[in-house]
C-alpha cells in the first residue's frame, strides 16, 4: 500500500510545468548562475514553498542569523503560476525568518510570479549581501545588480514607481521593500504590483539585510504545458462554474472584507487586542461601509476572475486623498476593531502607510494593540512609549506609532524587533501579547474554537491562519466533533493549503467559491503530462510539513513552542455568544499528543531522525 503513486510517476518523464532552471544570485560576489534541477526534484517538491523549504534545508547548517548574508532567500512561483487558470498569481518567499528565527515563508499575489516564470525561471535564490543598496534586474537571461543608493528610505510603492521609471517601462514587474525592510524591522514585507505583500515572517528584512531594495523582472517565454488543449478546456469550464456561483458577484464586490460582518455576527471579531469578540462599531468598518463610501475599483491578481482587491479612496476628512488597495479582512481587523478604531478612513490610512513603509499589518496591528492595552492597564508607563497618548481608537497616535516602528524611532525600535524583542524587554506583557513562536496572531480568535488554537499552535511559521483555518467549520459542526475530528481537520488543512502554495495558486477559489480541490490534480496532470490524483499531491505536501518542522527543530523548536497565546487559555472572551470561553489546557494537551501521534512525531513534537534522510536528495 505504501508504494506510492509518486514513485511510479517518477518513472514517467515530465513534459511540462517546469523550465528546470533556478536563477541563483550571490549578491556578495555579484555572480549569477543557473542551477538546473531534475524530474525527481520537481515532482517531489512541486514548486513554490516546496522548492523554498528544500533549498533552505540544504543550506541550514551555514545559517546562524536570519539577517546575516548567509541566509538563503528563495522566491518561487509554482508550476501552475502564470497559466490560464483561476488564481494562478501566487509566488512564495522562503527563508529563515527574522521574526521567529525558525522556518519562514510568505506569499504574494499580483503578477510578479507569472513574470518570473516567463523570464524562464522556476525560482530565484538570493544569497550574500550587495555592497551597497541596489536593485536586481532580471530581464530573461540578462541579470544585473544595479546600485541604487538614491532609493534609500523610499516607500515600497514609491520604489516600484522609481524602478519602473529608471527602466523606462510600465510593463516590468517590481517587488520592493519600504524603509522598514532597509531598517531590518522584523516584520517587514515585500510588496509587489503596488499592493500585494509577502507580509509575514519579515521577508522584507531579509531582502533589506542583503541590500536589495527591489527586484524587477521581465519575461516573454512560453510556459511549458504538456496538454494545452486540456488546460484550456479545464479553465473555460472553471471560469464558468465560478461565475455561476451564487456568491461570485458579492465576492467581487467585497472580497475578504465580507468577513468583518460575518465574524462580528458570529461573535468572533477580535476587538481591543483580543479582549472582546464583538465590536460595537463593526458596521462602520465592514464590507458594506467600504462598498458604499470608499470603494472606487476592483483589482485582481494574475489570472483571477474573483478580483478580491478593493481600491479605496478617502474623499473627505483628515485622511482625504488617501488611496490604497485594500484593506482586506486581516488589516481591517488588526488596524480597526482590534485597536478600537471605528473610522474606516483611518484604517485605509493605516493600510496605505503599512504598504508604503513595508510592514505587515497583522504584526504591526497586534503590537500596537498590545501597547495600547499595556498603557491602558498600567503594565507600561507613558514614559515607556515616549509619552505618546496611546488609547483605543486614537488613529493619529496609531499611525504615528506605525511610522515609529518602521523607522525604529524611540519605542518603535523595540517594537521593530517583533514579539520576541518586546517580551525580552517587557516580560510582564506575556499575558497580553497575542503571539505564538514570536509571530503575532492573525485576526481570528481561537477560544470559541479550540481546533483553531491547535492550528495556531502547530502552524509551522507561527500564529498564522494560512496553514489551517477551521473557525467556520467548528462553529458550525464543532458540537459533534471528537478530538480526533479536530486533529484531522487541522491536519487536512495543513496538508491541502501548503499544496496551493507549492503549486503557486491562490486557495481562495477553493475556500470561498467551492472550487473542487481535485481539479488542481487535473491541472497538474495536464501541465506535467503525468497523471496525478489529489492524493498523490497531498502525500507530497504532507511530507513537506515534516521538512519545515525539521528546519524549525534545528533552531530549538519543540512542544513548548506549540501553544496558542497565553491569552487564549487565560482570559475569557468578553461579549457575544461565546462570552466566557477559554481554551481548556488539559484538552489542548490531549489534542497536541494526538496531533504528534498522527504526524508520527515524538511526544515532544520532534520528527524521527530517519525523516531527515528523506530530504537529503540532490536537486538533479
Amino acid at each position, binding site marked *: 500500500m505504501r508504494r506510492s503513486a509518486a514513485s511510479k510517476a517518477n518513472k514517467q518523464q515530465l513534459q511540462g510545468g517546469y523550465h528546470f532552471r533556478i536563477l541563483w544570485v550571490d549578491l556578495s560576489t555579484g555572480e549569477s548562475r543557473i542551477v538546473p534541477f531534475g524530474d525527481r526534484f520537481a515532482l517531489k517538491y512541486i514548486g513554490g514553498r516546496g522548492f523554498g523549504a528544500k533549498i533552505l534545508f540544504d543550506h541550514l547548517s551555514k545559517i546562524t542569523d536570519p539577517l546575516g548574508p548567509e541566509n538563503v532567500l528563495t522566491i518561487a512561483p509554482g508550476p501552475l503560476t502564470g497559466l490560464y487558470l483561476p488564481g494562478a498569481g501566487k509566488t512564495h518567499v522562503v527563508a529563515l525568518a527574522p521574526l521567529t528565527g525558525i522556518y519562514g515563508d510568505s506569499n504574494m499575489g499580483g503578477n510578479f510570479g507569472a513574470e518570473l516564470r516567463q523570464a524562464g525561471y522556476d525560482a530565484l535564490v538570493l544569497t550574500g549581501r550587495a555592497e551597497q543598496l541596489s536593485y536586481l534586474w532580471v530581464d530573461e537571461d540578462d541579470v544585473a545588480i544595479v546600485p541604487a543608493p538614491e532609493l534609500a528610505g523610499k516607500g515600497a510603492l514609491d520604489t516600484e514607481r522609481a524602478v519602473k521609471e529608471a527602466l523606462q517601462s*510600465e510593463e516590468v514587474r517590481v517587488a520592493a521593500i519600504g524603509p522598514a525592510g532597509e531598517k531590518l524591522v522584523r516584520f517587514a514585507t515585500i510588496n509587489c504590483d*503596488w499592493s500585494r505583500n509577502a507580509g509575514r515572517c519579515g521577508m522584507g528584512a531579509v531582502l533589506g539585510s542583503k541590500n536589495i531594495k527591489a527586484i524587477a523582472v521581465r519575461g516573454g*517565454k512560453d510556459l511549458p504545458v504538456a496538454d494545452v488543449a486540456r488546460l484550456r478546456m479545464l479553465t473555460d469550464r472553471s471560469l464558468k462554474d465560478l461565475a455561476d456561483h451564487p456568491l461570485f458577484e458579492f465576492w467581487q464586490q467585497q472580497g475578504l472584507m465580507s468577513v468583518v460582518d460575518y465574524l462580528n455576527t458570529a461573535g468572533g471579531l477580535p476587538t481591543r487586542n483580543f479582549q472582546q469578540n464583538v465590536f460595537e462599531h463593526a458596521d462602520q468598518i465592514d464590507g458594506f461601509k467600504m462598498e458604499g463610501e470608499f470603494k472606487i475599483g476592483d*483589482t485582481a491578481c494574475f489570472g*483571477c*476572475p474573483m*478580483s478580491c482587491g478593493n*481600491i479605496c479612496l478617502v474623499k473627505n476628512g483628515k485622511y482625504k486623498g488617501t488611496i490604497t488597495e485594500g484593506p482586506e479582512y486581516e488589516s481591517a481587523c488588526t488596524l480597526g476593531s482590534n485597536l478600537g478604531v471605528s473610522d474606516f478612513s483611518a484604517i485605509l490610512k493605516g493600510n496605505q502607510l503599512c504598504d508604503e513603509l513595508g510592514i505587515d499589518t497583522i504584526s504591526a496591528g497586534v503590537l500596537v494593540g498590545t501597547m495600547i492595552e499595556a498603557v491602558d492597564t498600567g503594565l507600561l508607563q507613558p514614559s515607556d512609549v515616549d509619552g505618546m497618548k496611546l488609547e483605543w481608537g486614537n488613529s493619529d497616535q496609531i499611525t504615528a506609532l506605525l511610522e515609529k516602528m518602521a523607522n525604529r524611532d524611540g519605542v518603535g525600535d523595540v517594537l521593530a524587533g517583533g514579539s520576541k524583542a518586546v517580551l525580552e524587554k517587557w516580560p510582564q506583557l506575556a499575558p497580553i501579547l497575542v503571539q505564538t513562536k514570536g509571530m503575532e496572531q492573525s485576526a481570528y480568535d481561537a477560544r470559541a474554537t479550540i481546533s483553531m488554537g491547535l492550528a495556531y499552535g502547530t502552524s509551522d511559521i507561527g500564529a498564522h491562519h494560512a496553514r489551517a483555518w477551521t473557525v467556520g467549520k467548528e462553529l458550525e459542526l464543532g458540537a459533534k466533533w471528537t478530538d480526533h475530528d479536530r486533529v484531522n481537520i487541522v491536519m487536512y488543512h495543513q496538508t491541502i493549503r501548503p499544496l496551493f502554495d507549492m503549486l503557486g495558486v491562490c486557495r481562495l477559489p477553493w475556500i470561498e467559491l467551492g472550487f473542487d480541490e481535485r481539479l488542481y490534480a487535473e491541472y497538474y496532470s495536464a501541465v506535467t503530462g503525468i497523471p496525478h490524483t489529489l492524493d498523490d499531491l497531498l502525500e507530497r505536501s504532507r511530507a513537506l510539513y515534516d521538512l519545515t518542522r525539521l528546519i524549525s527543530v534545528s533552531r530549538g523548536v519543540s512542544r513548548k513552542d506549540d501553544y496558542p497565546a497565553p491569552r487564549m487559555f487565560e482570559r475569557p472572551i468578553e461579549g457575544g455568544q461565546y462570552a466566557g470561553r477559554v481554551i481548556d489546557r488539559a484538552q489542548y494537551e490531549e489534542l497536541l499528543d494526538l496531533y504528534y501521534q498522527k504526524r508520527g512525531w515524538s511526544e515532544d513534537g520532534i520528527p524521527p531522525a530517519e525523516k531527515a534522510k528523506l530530504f537529503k536528495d540532490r536537486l538533479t
Partner: protein
Amino acid sequence: MPKRLSVVPERCSGCRLCECTCALQHFGVSNPKKSAIRVVALYPHPVIRMPVVCRQCAQPKCRENCPTDAITLEDGVVRIDAETCVSCRQCVISCPFGAIFVHDDIAVPFKCDLCGGHPQCVQQCPKAALQYVPEHELGEANRVAAVLRYAHMKEVEYVEKGERKKLRYAEIGREQSE
C-alpha cells in the same frame, strides 16, 4: 451588422485572463506576451487598469504607414499579411494605441483579428470590461451619461401658488416612479 470590440476600463480588474485566452487561441501557448490584447495598469495616480486592443480603425494608421502594403482592412478587420510583411515594426510604432504587438518567437507583428467574430477575450472577461457590440451602439452609453449629467446640473424655475420654486430636471418624475 458590423460589430466592434469595446473596452470599459472602469470595470477592468487587471486579471489578464484576456491575455491568457488570446495567446491560447492564436498561438496555442500559455504566454500572455503572445497576446493581441494587453492590460496596462497604472497606480496610484491615476489608478487605472485598461486593456489595450486594436480598434480596427476605418482609417488605419498602421496601414497608411506600412511600406509593403501588408496591412489590409476587410469586413471591418485590420489584418497583417505574413507573406508580404517584412517585419519592419513600422505599424507597431504607428498605432496610436500601441495595439500591435511583437515577440521574438514570432516572425511578424500580430494584432487582434476578432477571432473570426467570436472574440475569446470578451467571452472570458469576468468583469464584462470587454464588450462585442454592434457598431451603432458605440457611444450610446456616453450619450446617455452626458444627458444624465446635464440633467443633474440643470434646474427649472417655476411658480407655485405665487411662490418661486426650483426643481432639478433629475428629480422630475422620480416621486411617481418610486
